[in-house]
């Protein structure tokens, strides 16, 4: 089976190349690189909105990118039930589009966090099928606005619909924290109700190759293609 994918690049994206290599290495199939001003997406199984600082994070992180020309087709792609995956700034863009609930606000301690962290899966979905219950994945984060916020009603519905995909957890490092950025209930990643869209702050595309410290990021793409 050939699993085709695409990565969208916005001005200020800086993990698009990493995402491209991540997909090429793990899917061994066609990966399109798409500029945000293009009007249409090719037919693919998965689209990644990569990390970075699209449009310089002007106004709010992800706000300007969420109005880009390509986004209409990204929404269509997701409405067709195909996979859409936002990593870091990509997660922020998905909340700004309204495809995912909640918002990402400034980290509680005001620090830009660039380090390894640990996450585990909360509710099962197609993005985390290959991950065991209580398996702590070591995946780096690099963000200033990763503090997930939503109101109580939304939180309740995220739980009832089993939309919380990942939460931060303690790991093998002695200084690893349970909740690195102040997110409500330590949420690191959520899906939509249909569970074909995932947004997460940690960067699995920085944890897959032999030259990375961890290869745990492989598990997400392996879940999708298995």
């Amino acid at each position, binding site marked *: 089976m050939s699993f085709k994918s695409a990565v969208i690049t916005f001005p200020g994206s800086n993990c698009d190349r990493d995402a491209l290599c991540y997909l090429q290495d793990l899917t061994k199939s066609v990966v399109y690189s798409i500029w945000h001003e293009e009007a249409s997406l090719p037919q693919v199984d998965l689209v990644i909105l990569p990390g970075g600082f699209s449009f310089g994070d002007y*106004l*709010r992180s992800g*706000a300007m990118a969420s*109005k880009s020309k390509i986004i209409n087709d990204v929404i269509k792609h997701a409405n067709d039930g195909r996979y859409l995956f936002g990593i870091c700034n990509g997660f922020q863009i998905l*909340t*700004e589009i309204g495809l995912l609930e*909640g*918002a990402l*606000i*400034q*980290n*509680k*301690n*005001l620090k830009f966090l660039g380090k390894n962290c640990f996450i585990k899966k909360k509710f099962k979905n197609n993005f985390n099928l290959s991950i065991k219950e209580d398996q702590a994945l070591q995946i780096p984060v690099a963000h200033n606005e990763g*503090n997930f*916020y*939503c*109101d109580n009603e939304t939180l309740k519905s995220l739980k009832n619909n089993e939309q919380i995909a990942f939460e931060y957890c303690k790991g093998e490092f002695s200084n690893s924290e349970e909740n690195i950025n*102040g997110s409500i209930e330590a949420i690191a990643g959520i899906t939509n109700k249909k569970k074909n869209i995932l947004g997460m702050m940690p960067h699995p595309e920085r944890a897959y190759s032999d030259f990375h410290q961890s290869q745990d990021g492989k598990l997400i793409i392996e879940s999708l293609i298995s």
Partner: protein
Amino acid sequence: MRIKILIRLKSQILEPQGKVIEQALNNLGFNEFNNIRQGKLIELDLPDNLSKEEKGQKIDSACKKLLVNDIIEEYEVLG
């Protein structure tokens, strides 16, 4: 006509920058300055010939579509 839109985080949302500013002011001896929160101000020109209603509609629509994220923010048009 010059329009000013004041955007701030809703009161229940943590605003860490305000807290740090407050701490710095307190350190400088401004001990009476409490509950500081930082927001943003957007200024723009709209043509004078628009009616008050038209202006209000255009500003609300722009805020809803782009300028404000109503999950975390609220806005006020200053006179």
